[in-house]
């Protein structure tokens, strides 16, 4: 029944069919929340959504590439947490911010490479490998912090999250730079072309004489490195290192990628869709907060979002 009404909708408004499901859903969410709450569409709140979505965006962008290459990175939430803890640990130890940042990024990069190398060279399923790494990172975060919060991180790192430049919060710059860099990587470099090819036809790439394994590992390395970078914002946001800070965030990231229209098959991906997916998740969380919905229900709403997005796209392809 839903099927027929939707189909009719698409015949009455043929242009509707060409608009990706994620954009329709973002629009619908924003419409509903702006009616329910007058503050929703205010500039400070919209800015707030942007700031709150930055960390998710920074891990969802590389997740798009990972999923395009017919993989998945389940470890990303735990890795983000672990890198955040590393940053806090080195801050507390040395009060040297550049060193802390470098260590966090380095740890992310190394674990990403380990993920990729196991997947590619040992030919193991990405889900299993990164699930194992999830457990390891979670544990390492607890070991480094001894289960406590590291709060002796000084005052400078917090500025990365709360600071402004030209009236725009600093995280927004992080988001813009991350998006632009990964967009260029995906659409304007060899590496990006090979990401499409690894998911779409790995044999063809091999026959084209490309060193496929290295590029394949690089995708996971990128994912890990971005988690390291995002962990700076995470530690800045909490102004401390917390051993369970971003546990479970892989769920939001994978959801955002799927909602954005990237498929698990054939190397079919869309980076801007992931951006829209992240914003939709952010809008949903922010809007539900504003109208006073409990956070326990918010997770369910994101699950629902994924299902509706997939249904919408499958109806549209049939219509």
């Amino acid at each position, binding site marked *: 029944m839903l099927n027929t009404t939707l189909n009719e909708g698409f015949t009455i408004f043929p242009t509707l069919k060409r608009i990706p499901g994620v954009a329709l859903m973002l629009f619908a969410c924003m419409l509903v929340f702006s009616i329910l709450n007058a503050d929703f569409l205010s500039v400070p709140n919209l800015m707030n959504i942007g700031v709150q979505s930055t960390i998710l965006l920074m891990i969802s962008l590389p997740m798009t590439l990972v999923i395009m290459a017919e993989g998945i990175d389940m470890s990303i939430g735990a890795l983000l947490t672990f890198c955040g803890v590393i940053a806090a640990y080195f801050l507390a130890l040395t009060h040297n911010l550049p060193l802390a940042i470098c260590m966090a990024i380095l740890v992310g990069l190394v674990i990403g490479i380990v993920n990729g190398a196991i997947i590619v060279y040992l030919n193991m399923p990405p889900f299993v490998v990164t699930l194992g790494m999830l457990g390891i990172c979670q544990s390492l975060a607890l070991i480094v912090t001894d289960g406590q919060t590291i709060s002796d991180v000084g005052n400078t790192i917090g500025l990365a999250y709360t600071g402004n430049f030209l009236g725009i919060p600093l995280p927004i710059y992080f988001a813009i730079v991350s998006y632009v860099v990964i967009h*260029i990587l995906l659409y*304007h*470099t*060899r590496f990006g*072309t090979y990401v*499409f*090819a690894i*998911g*779409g*036809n790995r*044999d*063809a*790439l*091999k*026959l*084209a*004489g*490309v060193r496929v394994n290295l590029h394949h590992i690089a995708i996971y390395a990128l994912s890990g490195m971005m988690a390291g970078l995002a962990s700076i914002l995470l530690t800045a946001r909490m102004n401390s290192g917390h051993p369970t800070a971003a546990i479970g965030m892989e769920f939001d990231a994978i959801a955002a990628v799927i909602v954005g229209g990237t498929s698990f098959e*054939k*190397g*079919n*991906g869309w980076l801007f869709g992931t951006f829209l997916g992240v914003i939709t998740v952010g809008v949903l969380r922010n809007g539900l907060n504003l109208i006073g919905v409990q956070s326990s229900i918010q997770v369910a709403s994101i699950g629902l979002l994924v299902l509706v997005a997939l249904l919408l796209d499958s109806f549209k392809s049939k219509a």
Partner: protein
Amino acid sequence: MTLPILELRSISKFFPGIVALDKVSFDVYSGEVHMLLGENGAGKSTLMKVLCGAYQADGGEIYHQGQPVQIHHPGDARNLGIAVIFQEFSLVPYLNIAQNIFLGREYSGSIPGTLDHSRMHQEAKHWLRVLSLDIDTHTLVHTLGVAQQQMVEIAKALSQDAKILVMDEPTAALSDRETTLLFEMIRKLQSEGVAIIYISHRMAEVFSMGDRITVLRDGKQVGSADPKTTTPDELVQMMVGRRVDMAYARNFQSQPGRVALKLSHLCSENGIEDISLEVREGEIVGLAGLVGAGRTEVARATFGVDKVSSGTVEIFGKNRTGEPFQSVDMGLALIPESRKTEGLALIRSVEENIILSGLNKIFPSSWINNRKVQQISEDLIRKLRIATPSGKQSTQLLSGGNQQKIVIGKWLTTDSKIFIFDEPTRGIDVGAKAEIFALIYKLVEDGAAVLMISSELSEIVNVCDKAYVMREGKISGLLEKEALNEENILKLGMTDA
């Protein structure tokens, strides 16, 4: 005297249990079109994969202009100026035409690390124009039709400025107009001194395009021929050879009974068109043709795995509709081509596999009685002579022949009356083959109807009562009695023969 641009000397390639190439020697000169001919599984594609670096030869040498060379990976082949037009498309679905054409040899842009998209599109456009293909180079490849994808594949090979061009049945997916264009291109390249190795199944092509013909059979080089002095019949003779492998000849007369399976004008979205055939009780009917002719697709549509778009499937006069389980209820059994992926749960035991299809019939109440399972499976293991230490053995540890017996055994518990065998002896050694056929004969003697798909001509000829031959998704002929021989099957199976 000029040297061949590329020469292979006694190349061998082994796969577990199979000699794919047995000391094959082959050469090609600049400006020559060398045709490579052979039945399915004769080793043509393996030879090509050795050439392009996808496989490593296990023996033999390769010479390039008289110099010994090694082709370890595809990059080496490219450096020697070898370009390949693959039969299975080597295209990336969500990249556009230009990106596909330049995959692995992208032009760098002015900013380090970036790509020069406009130059790639410009050159891609040039190659599409050469091939009279009027498509935007920004089009994603997965939106193209099969023929257009094949043309992109050809453009990809041409753009590599190759000195040696290898084509694996390039015209299989092309229309006449596109084929003519391709042939003009080949003539032009030939006059420019490009050496061309051309694998084909089409006799007309072989004679109109070829300067020299080499025939492979069972991984061996049977001989070479000059198209000017050879006739198509002689070539077919060479491809078929004479076989002494008669271990499975039948020793009984069939007594055809009622019509068990009848397909009328069956069409399916999987590419088969207007298929009409009949199989009677107590009869073995063959379905022959080249790989890709649509034989497996007929089996799938008949069984209800692929959707039937028009036409009917009748089982003992009743229309078959719906899902595969309904086909099973009506007495249809399918023994699929790839037993490892479609026929068996490999890590499960012999017992569990052999009982699987019959669970409904044996245990209508859904409660499973383990002692009965053991009884039935032990009975079948004995009857089928499956060589396994016990019913608890995991099926992946058994040989191909024993695995196939299990797949057949699965259907013996279901009271099936019509059996469709898709390549029942693929990858099975001669001894086990004879046993598999003995099983099939037993079924037929007990009144079952059998439709057997096989790429091995001698099997079709020696085992079947009659055989339908398929070509390009359609039935191209029915062979019975004396007319059922290997030559006729090949002729009907190949285009323009």
